[in-house]
């Protein structure tokens, strides 16, 4: 390639280069929707080129599901099949919540690598970079959910809520995950290195996903812990998702999840936008 550079320089005084520089006209700036879609297609291309990012999404849930069902199912619920009915909704929530963390990590990488600087000097509606990424994240979350549910069905998961119940559950998970993503984008903008970002994200995620009602009924816990588990937003979501899947959901349960999502979004979305625009 370097070879051909030399040749076209000699034969034609770099005519191609001169033409390319002269030929550009400034098109009118794209609207926010169009630039959001461009960023979304970038995120899709990244999934294509870096399929490892989907690896985390699919492999961990499977390991968790198998491990907990067969290793602890008998001990906790008496039978693996009974435990699966209880566990699958919980582990689905846990998996997708943990995946949301990658939104922040991707953003953090962009900032450290310098491509963020390029985006910020383009005359575009800046939040479209985030909107595009979050759109594709929804695709990732849906894929992870699908894999989990299909695997669950194979293992013997039988949702009484049927297909509509499952769809409702996934939709609620997507809403919640979208709002939770803003927490990670905020952290992704604050933290200097990927390592420290991972650390902090884990420190938040591990307690809220494990100290929840994902694996056990809160009534079996000591009362001080039960207090935390009951107000933990992950527990609220798990309760509603179980409700949807087993056809016993109440408006109250959904309401709590929407409220938690609203609170996350109202605090962290503007904070992200502020940090994003004022990043030094």
């Amino acid at each position: 390639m370097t070879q051909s550079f030399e040749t076209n320089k000699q034969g034609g005084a770099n005519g191609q280069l001169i033409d390319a520089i002269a030929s550009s006209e400034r098109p009118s700036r794209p609207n926010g929707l169009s630039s959001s879609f461009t960023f979304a297609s970038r995120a899709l291309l990244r999934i294509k080129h870096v399929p490892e990012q989907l690896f985390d999404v699919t492999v961990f849930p499977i390991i968790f599901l198998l491990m907990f069902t067969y290793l602890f199912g008998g001990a906790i619920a008496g039978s693996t099949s009974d435990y699966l009915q209880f566990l699958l909704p919980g582990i689905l929530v846990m998996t997708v919540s943990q995946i949301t963390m990658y939104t922040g990590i991707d953003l953090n990488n962009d900032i450290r690598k310098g491509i963020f600087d390029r985006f910020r000097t383009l005359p575009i509606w800046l939040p479209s970079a985030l909107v595009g990424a979050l759109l594709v994240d929804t695709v990732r979350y849906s894929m992870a959910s699908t894999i989990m549910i299909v695997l669950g069905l194979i293992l013997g998961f039988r949702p009484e809520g049927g297909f509509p119940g499952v769809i409702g559950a996934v939709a609620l998970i997507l809403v919640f995950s979208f709002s939770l993503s803003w927490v990670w984008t905020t952290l992704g903008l604050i933290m200097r290195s990927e390592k420290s970002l991972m650390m902090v994200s884990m420190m938040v995620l591990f307690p809220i996903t494990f100290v929840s009602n994902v694996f056990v009924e809160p009534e079996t816990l000591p009362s001080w812990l039960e207090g935390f588990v009951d107000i933990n937003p992950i527990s609220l979501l798990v309760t509603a998702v179980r409700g949807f899947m087993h056809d016993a959901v109440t408006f109250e349960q959904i309401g709590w999840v929407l409220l938690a999502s609203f609170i996350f979004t109202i605090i962290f979305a503007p904070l992200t936008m502020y940090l994003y625009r004022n990043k030094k």
Partner: protein
Amino acid sequence: MDDTKQTMAIEAKGLVKVFGKDRAVDGVDLSIKKGSVYGFLGPNGAGKTTTIRMLATLLQPDEGHAQIFGHDLVSETAAIKSRISLTGQYASIDEDLTGIENLIMISRLMGYSRKQAKARANELLHAFSLADAAKKQVKNYSGGMRRRIDIAASIVVTPDLLFLDEPTTGLDPRSRNQVWDIIRALVNAGTTVLLTTQYLEEADQLADRIAVINHGKIIAEGTSSELKASVGMSTLHVSLFDQQDRDKAIEVLTQKLDDSVRPGSDPASLTAQVLDPSVVAEALGELQKENIRMTTFSLGQPSLDEVFLTLTGQPVEENAAHEEGVTR
């Protein structure tokens, strides 16, 4: 804003940026004419990147103000962004994507239709001799190719003002020449270029005017010949056979050249700044007459260290030279 009357691309007064206690940029004034190439010359940590990031609207100055094509740097960022482009010190493209995917993405973000974007991306890849690598991920590119795709991404729409932060640092001479050709072609097409460099030769080759920057301050400014006049056109290095002869040799050479003759870092060596290379032969002949034997001598461009030595009377501080990739 009537652009035709505007003759200045950049006018800055008293720009300051403070990081903690560190005054990274400490009162920088600049006037850069439209259509010119301006070189920022300085060692690592001098404040070059910080200045560029302020001028490219990425960083707010703590003090001072600036106008880009007459637009205020702080209050008219949208107008500025539509006319500038930045190629950062580190790759400002997505390394996981291929070359063509990167250029299509930027073209789409600039407002081209899908079809136009593809055409423009291909045109640029050919012009930058990257057509063969179009479908390779950028992370597999060589240093020179990476730099070229980065610059290509910056000129998807030819900007009126292009910032290039150390465009050739770490490149081999051939790749460096290719980048220089690109910069020259851009300037011919009317783009104003502000580039930073650690190499005097690069500033000399490309820039109409040069600012030498150290510790956040501009310590010299002028055309390359003005700077050279103050620094010495070339540097003479002489190694003596016997280090005992050095004082005598300095004395002899000082008579023939001027008082820029100094002892070198090695006890048997000395250096001198030479304005007129034709007197060098004569001066070295004098050494011969005095029976002072030399092992080697060479005449070269003054290095950045020598510029600093002359301008500040101090060598470049080693402790100022840290990698800043980590500190962003």
